[in-house]
């Protein structure tokens, strides 16, 4: 929306007139009813559970309904170490979720492998196979950090345009909504990353070009 329109809207609201757009209304509804998948991997999952309970109360953000089926969920919180043996299942769960769908990579392990990065059994970041919307560092991140990630995601949803070339994936049928599930190879996962999703030099904070 143009800046003058925004100013006009503020000016009108000061005089008791409420205006909105379809896009705003649509995104407002979507961002306040994100349904995460009941899915935990490691110690980060304990913090995720704590976030949903009374003390931190994720329900304040409209995300209290953790769905037990990927068919009914639109957010997957990758909470913990993704082992190579688990990675195909994580990608498969993501593929089974209907659009629009979002991913939060919670904690150092989900981002990059974390303290287990050198291990033979650990996937070095879930962003190798699925597109991640919000990364939260921490080992594990505190519930406040997960809430912050959730608010960041809400902001991201709020800013999505419904039309035009910048429209999100679920409104653009040329963009994929499913991603290839890695296979168990002789020495590791095959392929080691999905280059459509994983942009090593640009996106990976651990890759440093001298």
């Amino acid at each position: 929306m143009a800046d003058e329109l925004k100013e006009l809207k503020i000016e009108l609201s000061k005089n008791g007139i409420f205006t909105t757009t379809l896009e705003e209304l649509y995104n407002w509804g979507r961002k306040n009813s994100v349904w995460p998948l009941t899915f935990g991997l490691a110690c980060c999952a304990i913090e995720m559970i704590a976030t949903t309970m009374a003390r931190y109360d994720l329900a304040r953000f409209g995300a209290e309904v953790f769905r037990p089926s990927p068919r009914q969920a639109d957010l997957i919180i990758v909470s913990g170490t993704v082992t190579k043996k688990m990675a195909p299942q994580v990608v498969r769960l993501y593929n089974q979720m209907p659009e629009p769908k979002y991913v939060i990579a919670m904690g150092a392990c989900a981002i990059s492998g974390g303290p287990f990065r050198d291990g033979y059994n650990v996937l070095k970041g879930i962003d190798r196979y699925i597109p991640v919307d919000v990364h939260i560092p921490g080992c594990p991140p505190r519930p406040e950090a997960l809430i912050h990630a959730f608010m960041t995601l809400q902001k991201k949803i709020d800013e999505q345009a419904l039309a035009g070339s910048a429209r999100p994936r679920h409104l653009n049928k040329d963009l994929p909504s499913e991603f290839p599930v890695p296979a168990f190879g002789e020495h590791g996962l095959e392929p080691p990353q999905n280059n459509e999703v994983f942009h090593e030099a640009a996106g990976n904070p651990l890759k440093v070009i001298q």
Partner: protein
Amino acid sequence: MALPPVEQIKAQIEAGVPGASVTVILNGSPSAQHSLLLDPAHARAVAELLRDHSEWRLDYCTLVTGVDWPDTETSEKVKVRKFVKAADGTESEQEVDEVRKTKVPGYLEAVYHLFSMEKKHGQVVLRLRTGNRTDDTHVPSLTPVWRGAEFQEREAFDLYGIVFDGHPDLRRILMWDGFKDYPMRKDYVPPADEIPVIEVHS
């Protein structure tokens, strides 16, 4: 009643199982966890003796693990008489230092820690060694003696490649079936595309 010293256990095993040869491996550290190296041919009989012996009753195997001992190279300096060409072209016999390298082949080791629930004593540490690290990686399974060793022997098979003969269900337990490497071996190298890039500040 406490267990007798390892030397006595060794002597009693060798008396109890004809033909068995047991080597005591002493641990010089303060923990003094000495262990018994068994020969593969009699390991099963020795294990049964340890379990059923009326005074020892080592009925509980707490731990089975693998150890990888890679091939090592020892070098020693030897004095050799040799014809040496001097700078002016004349040859003369001289004593020269030469470094001789000998390769010591490595092996894989399965380690068992035994306790007695009945007698409330322990522990006795057993070791079994394979012939080498490549083609002769067999040791007898002790799962028929201590049932609890089953999954831990599978783990040692999975991660070190020790083949336990006589194991009831020897499959990989942590890695998938098509996996070819043994990741806990010292010479394991993870796939090149996964090796982390380390940040260098210049």
